[in-house]
């Protein structure tokens, strides 16, 4: 009830502020959005927002920068934003990926907002219009309410948004569709016209919304999809030019949904699986590259025996089960390791360099990663490493001493925060390597044994006694 009042107060204040500011601020008002359609998918804890905008240039000059606005809370939870330009008519549409960058607007916005600019491939002439498709992916955006649930309860979450799209432009017509995972919706705020059919809530259509109009709403609904979050994933890829790539992945997994409270009863969990622990999860699926070998799954205190590996020529699937089912707030750490054939991932580039081509991502399916660190351990003696990653990451160099290393191996460390499965893509690490270094370690071993035998022979044949 209180939240409801607060929401209304906020709404009133915002509208008042809007009325006050609307005439004074002047963002690049060249565009008008003639039609906006937003589809919000709430079926898992990764929220996908598809925004289709029909943008019309009503200014006098050609323009190529379309500005998107998001609230600061949304920006905090934003994992990625992607924009496509749709070209062509009804059937034959082609899409072009556009560059999106966070920007600051020079003049003060009427309400607190952060901006992203889409750079159109071709400037839009005066009077022309184009269709843009924007994808936002948010993580940790659903707020469990109640925050603590017992084993037999199912998980209810809040989704906060605004019925009207926050935009610096005038929107002539807009509609928002919210898709919930099930028909169990406890409550939602109506902003007429609002219509709920099955698992979909439709807001709108709303006509002629001035810039920066918002209308806060929330949806309180049941979401029992596993809120599995990898708080930290450290993936180490060690290249051996003797034909193997060893991958070791350290996971810190947590159930980020409503916290479990009170009793965990095994009887109930075993005998009444559907009504008990609906939001908990037991199984995880990891999709590994094909031809994977020597897979292991363990943690600090030893091997975990509950895992199954299915391989075929195209892909391998590893089904793992943490030691215990994860309820809200429970944690588990574990390590997955596997070997891969070198020739599938290491190539020679034209300029005499070698490069590793590997997937940047988390093999566990449908997993959000708060902090993903990829360490590429290059063979000993390799020089000038340079990573090529399709999106911005932090990177630095480290050294690592593996077996029989003397000078240490160069490690390229790539770090990415807020990683969602949509980020999965290939990255490359280029480096130069002289194959002569491959022989260093075998030679070292051979000479050590040789020295040992020589010492034995010498010991047998040399008389060390002082008596004659």
């Amino acid at each position, binding site marked *: 009830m209180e939240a409801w009042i607060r929401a209304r107060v906020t709404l009133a204040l915002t509208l008042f502020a809007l009325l006050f500011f609307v005439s004074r601020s002047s963002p690049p008002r060249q565009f008008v959005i003639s039609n906006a359609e937003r589809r919000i998918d709430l079926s898992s804890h990764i929220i996908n927002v598809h925004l289709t905008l029909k943008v019309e240039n009503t200014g006098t000059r050609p323009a190529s920068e379309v500005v998107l606005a998001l609230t600061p809370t949304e920006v905090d939870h934003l994992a990625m934003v992607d924009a496509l330009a749709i070209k062509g008519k009804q059937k034959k549409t082609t899409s072009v990926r556009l560059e999106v960058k966070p920007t600051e607007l020079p003049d003060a916005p009427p309400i607190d907002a952060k901006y992203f600019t889409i750079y159109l491939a071709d400037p839009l002439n005066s009077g022309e219009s184009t269709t843009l498709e924007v994808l936002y992916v948010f993580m940790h955006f659903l707020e469990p309410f109640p925050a603590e649930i017992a084993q037999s309860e199912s998980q209810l979450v809040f989704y906060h948004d605004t019925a009207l799209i926050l935009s610096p432009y005038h929107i002539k017509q807009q509609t928002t569709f919210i898709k919930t995972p099930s028909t169990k919706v406890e409550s939602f705020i109506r902003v007429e016209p609002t219509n709920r059919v099955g698992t979909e809530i439709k807001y709108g259509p709303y006509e002629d919304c001035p810039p920066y109009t918002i209308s806060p709403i929330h949806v309180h609904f049941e979401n029992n999809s596993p809120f599995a979050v990898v708080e930290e994933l450290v993936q180490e890829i060690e290249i051996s030019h003797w034909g193997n790539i060893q991958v070791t992945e350290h996971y810190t997994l947590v159930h980020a949904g409503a916290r479990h409270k009170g009793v965990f*009863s*095994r009887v109930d969990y075993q005998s009444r699986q559907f009504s008990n622990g609906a939001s908990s999860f037991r199984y995880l699926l990891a999709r590994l590259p094909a031809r994977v070998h020597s897979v292991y799954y363990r943690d600090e205190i030893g091997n975990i025996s509950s895992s199954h590996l299915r391989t075929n020529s195209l892909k391998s699937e590893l089904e793992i089960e943490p030691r*215990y089912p994860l309820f809200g707030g429970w944690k588990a750490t574990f390590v997955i390791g596997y070997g891969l054939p070198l020739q599938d991932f290491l190539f020679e580039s034209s300029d005499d360099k070698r490069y590793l081509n590997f997937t940047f991502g988390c093999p566990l399916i449908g997993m959000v990663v708060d902090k993903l660190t990829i360490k590429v351990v290059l063979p000993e003696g390799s020089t000038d490493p340079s990573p090529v990653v399709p999106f911005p990451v932090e990177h630095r160099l480290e050294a690592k001493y593996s077996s029989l290393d003397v000078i240490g191996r160069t490690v390229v460390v790539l770090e990415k925060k807020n990683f969602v499965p949509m980020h999965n893509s290939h990255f490359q690490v280029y480096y130069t390597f002289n194959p002569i270094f491959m022989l260093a370690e075998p030679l070292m071993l051979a000479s050590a044994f040789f020295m040992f035998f020589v010492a034995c022979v010498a010991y047998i044949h040399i008389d060390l006694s002082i008596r004659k």
Partner: protein
Amino acid sequence: MATMPASASDLFKSFKLKTKQQELLIRVSILCLVYILAFITRLFSVLRYESMIHEFDPYFNYRTTLYLTENGFYDFWNWFDYESWYPLGRIVGGTLYPGLMVTAVLIYRILRFLRFAVHIREVCVLTAPFFASNTTLVAYFFGKEIWDSGAGLVAAILIAICPGYISRSVAGSYDNEGVAIFALLFTFYVFVKAVNTGSLAWSLASAFGYFYMVSAWGGYVFIINLIPLYVLVLLITGRYSMRLYVAYNCMYILGMLLAMQIRFVGFQHVQSGEHMAAMGVFFLMQVFYFLDWVKHMLSDTKLFQAFLRITVTCAVAVGGIALGLGMVSGYISPWTGRFYSLLDPTYAKDHIPIIASVSEHQPTAWSSFMFDFHILLFLFPAGLYFCFKRLSDATIFIVMYGLTSMYFAGVMVRLILVATPAVCLISAIAVSATVKNLTVLLRSKNKVVQTGSTKGSGGSKSSSKALLDQSQPFQKNGAIALLFGAFYLLSRYATHCTWVTSEAYSSPSIVLAARGAHGNRVIFDDYREAYFWLRQNTPQDAKVMSWWDYGYQITAMGNRTVIVDNNTWNNTHIATVGRAMSSYEDEAIEIIRSLDVDYVLVVFGGVTGYSSDDINKFLWMVRIGGGVFPVIKEPDYLVNGEYRVDKGAAPKMLNCLMYKLCYYRFGEMLTEYGKPPGYDRARGVEIGNKDVKLEHLEEAFTTSNWIVRIYRVKPPNNRW
């Protein structure tokens, strides 16, 4: 070596080895093979399960080793552990034998220095097999010292696969005994060598061997009592020599001083009753030496006799008075309970239930002797016979070692381990001597037939044997038959050892394996499931109460504070936990609250049929608790002296905390087809109290096979 061979034939000739070199080559290669065999036969558990630490105590050793690698030696030495014996804590550095941990860390550092990227866990897992391999080498040299190199080789082979030793040294059983048996045998070997040679260097080495043993295992008390006993026997049998004097004095004095450096041992060598025998013998040696000198100076025998009488009387009197004064004033502590229970097998049962409750402290059954020694049990007397036939300082030692350790092995199951090297060595003498005699018989006959006498000394023997042969025509055939018999027995021994190792001694006991309905292997990994749950999902400072058996594992794997653990130093504290477990819930909650406990952990095998669970251990909790708190009475939990959990059980049993925690909501559970709900598979009965209600505790976690159940202590109710 000096000149290069000129031609090919010369080259070939130079490769052809002389008999002596051939023998050396064979010996070295056999030893190498034995060395490797001893290592790999202990790897069954790694191959069958994984490279992991086994059982209970090794987890403590592993945890301390981890601490040592991370924080260095000084921190380790001064470590006060808040995570065990809450709220008392434990001074770890002063209450453990650091030899094992230091050894493992040393190996780890060396491997790291050589650029092998190993994890400390792998080093810990493989320490015991590595030292078992080293023990085979020591056994070889020891056998060589007391008999001949043949006996040494046989001893090395026997000890490499002897189940009595393997039981404590498989990969993963990272326990003090793993290195201590090596240290024990090494000390004995070097001491015997010192006695044989009278060399100061060897006795110095034995002092250091003793030091290592003291740093590794409490069983050093055996050394410090056996060696004086041996010296005493030599003195009595008139085998006193300067060699013995040098060996013992140097070993005792230096060994004692070195041993005082271990904090856990401290001044016990001069203050504890268990070490007084060594000191007494030390003074006796001086008296002997003095008398010897006087005898040398005095020519008159009569005068010397009188002097002898006076001196011996004085010496004994002074010694007796000193000992008596020491005892009375409390400077010399009396024997400990453990020591008593060794000398008197029934002592622990009556006085110290906590010692008697440990399964490995039980008196040994004949079957386990047979299981652990197999044919060595029969070869042992034969070996003793050979030793007595060729009595020397060294054979007297091994006979005494064998006899005393055999006695102790009969008192306690775990001491079979100490007896194993002696049994192997003595049996090796039997095998080696028999086989040697038989082959000499065979070969001497051939020699007589072919060439007559070839060797100077052997010739006369063989000719006499040849004479004998004519009187006994079937002797050669008999010898062949006996040889085959011996080899058959030895091969049976080898198969038996391998079987025992793979079936009985290679189970980590943390992970349980069973055969499923379709013959597939089912793994019960419940212990680690529970410990990992504790580690991840309870507050960092949570206090866990459980029976002491699981204390080390909870601290090592669960990383949580425990009330009691396997270092059973405080009987009262353990009794308090025992009392809490055997009281009614509302009485127990008082104790639980006073101990600041957050979680209570019990082990329950009713679903899987796992029999070593807390219900089966419960009577010991009652006994230990009752030993300190007389309110707990054992008969209250029994019905006509019978222990039961079904409907006919004693009312106190059906309502005590342990029963409730184990069987909470078990009454709803169908465990076996065709049986009523609440059927306990470990005990084969339907439980008596199916409606268990908990008031102050709530179920926090139960593992998938119910083996470990963890309960959370609820906060006290609000008062309004």
